């Protein structure tokens, strides 16, 4: 996959002879080097989880939020350069409040995904801007039910049942495919997401990590919020036991 750009990779406004824009691919590498972020669509809502790799033991747990609410009914989990992610979230919040003030209803999730994707894509069109070095998983609950979107640094956005980005995305995708999402409630989904993140976490390469999870579902009254503490602890405990059982084999 890694081919040397040699001259065609200096600007995002340059195509290579085989039709690739290398700068965008390099931006995607920034996302691949960050902690895993996954999102799943259960039958009654969305669950998102982030493997927050802890850079220093001095950091306070609970700081450095990677999942942000974009409006009452939707939220975004960010992978890649955190500062770039903040900018995307700010733009998404602004689009959401603007839509509501004009049309009088909360922004539909597909509309929001489209606007965020356009914004990310915008930054791949001009030589004086660099592409965003972050991928975003957007989960929301509107009139058409729960929806999950993923927006990549190239500006591509698709709708998913389950999505994963970051270091362990291949392994995470395999695990997600094993789940029967259409029969799962979000309560069960939270446990599964925790299990997957613990499983794909590479103990050898990265020492410590903090699990951050959020949901938007019927149980949370269709509001995007952090998973309640007791459920989070329950999920972490279940994930640890599942890991131990695996190691015991």
């Amino acid at each position: 996959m890694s081919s040397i750009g040699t001259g065609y990779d200096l600007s995002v406004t340059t195509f290579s002879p085989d039709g690739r824009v290398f700068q965008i691919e390099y931006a995607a590498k920034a996302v691949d080097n960050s902690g895993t972020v996954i999102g799943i669509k259960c039958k009654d809502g969305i669950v998102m989880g982030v493997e927050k790799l802890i850079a220093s033991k001095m950091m306070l747990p609970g700081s450095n939020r990677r999942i942000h609410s974009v409006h009452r009914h939707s939220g975004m989990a960010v992978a890649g350069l955190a500062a770039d992610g903040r900018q995307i979230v700010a733009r998404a919040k602004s689009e959401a409040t603007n839509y509501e003030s004009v049309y009088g209803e909360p922004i539909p999730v597909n509309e929001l995904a489209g606007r965020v994707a356009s914004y990310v894509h915008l930054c791949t069109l001009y030589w004086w801007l660099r592409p965003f070095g972050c991928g975003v998983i957007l989960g929301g609950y509107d009139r058409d039910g729960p929806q999950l979107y993923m927006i990549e640094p190239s500006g591509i956005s698709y709708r998913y049942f389950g999505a994963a980005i970051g270091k362990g995305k291949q392994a995470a995708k395999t695990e997600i495919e094993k789940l029967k999402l259409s029969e799962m409630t979000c309560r069960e989904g939270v446990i599964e997401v925790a299990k997957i993140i613990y499983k794909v976490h590479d103990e050898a390469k990265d020492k410590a990590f903090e699990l951050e999870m959020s949901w938007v579902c019927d149980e949370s009254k269709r509001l995007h919020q952090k998973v309640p503490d007791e459920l989070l602890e329950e999920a972490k405990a279940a994930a640890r036991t599942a890991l131990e059982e695996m190691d015991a084999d």
Partner: protein
Amino acid sequence: MATTMVKENNAGPAQLLGPESASERTLYPYVTGTSVVALKYKDGILMAADMAASYGSTLRYKSVERMKSIGKHSLLGASGEISDFQEILRYLDELILYDNMWDDGNSLGPKEVHSYLTRVMYNRRNKFNPLWNSLVLGGVKNGQKYLGMVSMIGVNFEDNHVATGFGNHLARPILRDEWHENLSFEDGVKLLEKCMRVLLYRDRSAINKLQIAKITEEGVTISQPYALKTFWGFSAFQNPTVGAEGSW
């Protein structure tokens, strides 16, 4: 990403242009609500307002809710221009939304909302483009009761009982005499109803359809609309013109 402040129309250039340019600032109120009365009681705040919105001297709209809950801890009642009240509710909606999106366990309390409203009202007044309202902001947070008022020129204060408009003249004297600390819910409601009854008799823009709202640590409850019992059987009202100059 800061909370967007007042997004008002820029009145500057239009004012300087001359007689043809449209006036872009509020000169008079059109659809108005009358008094709001509120008091602190044992568990929180009680607030009462009728459901009328007058169009000048016409009692045009009779199902207007002039009290709304703001976030988890506050209750806002307004008199004056109803469209400006709706605009204020939009600003507060955005303020509360951004506050909720932090998802950090903290939330704006009544003191903070009152401060925000004071800034908004005062800044608008300084641009000669006021929001034509008198606002009553009450709430409870962490056991602390709070009751305050902001006027259209930005005058703000906190007290144990407040009222707007006619309520200042008719209700507050009653409250000054009869309010005391730790009123029970029933006594608080009785006292508010006494004030509202006087206003109903004497304020021509009041109607006999009111709501009483209560805010405590648990949350906000706004009652269904109901009517007060009135008594018109005074002997002086029988043959009202007897003895009057020029009557027969």
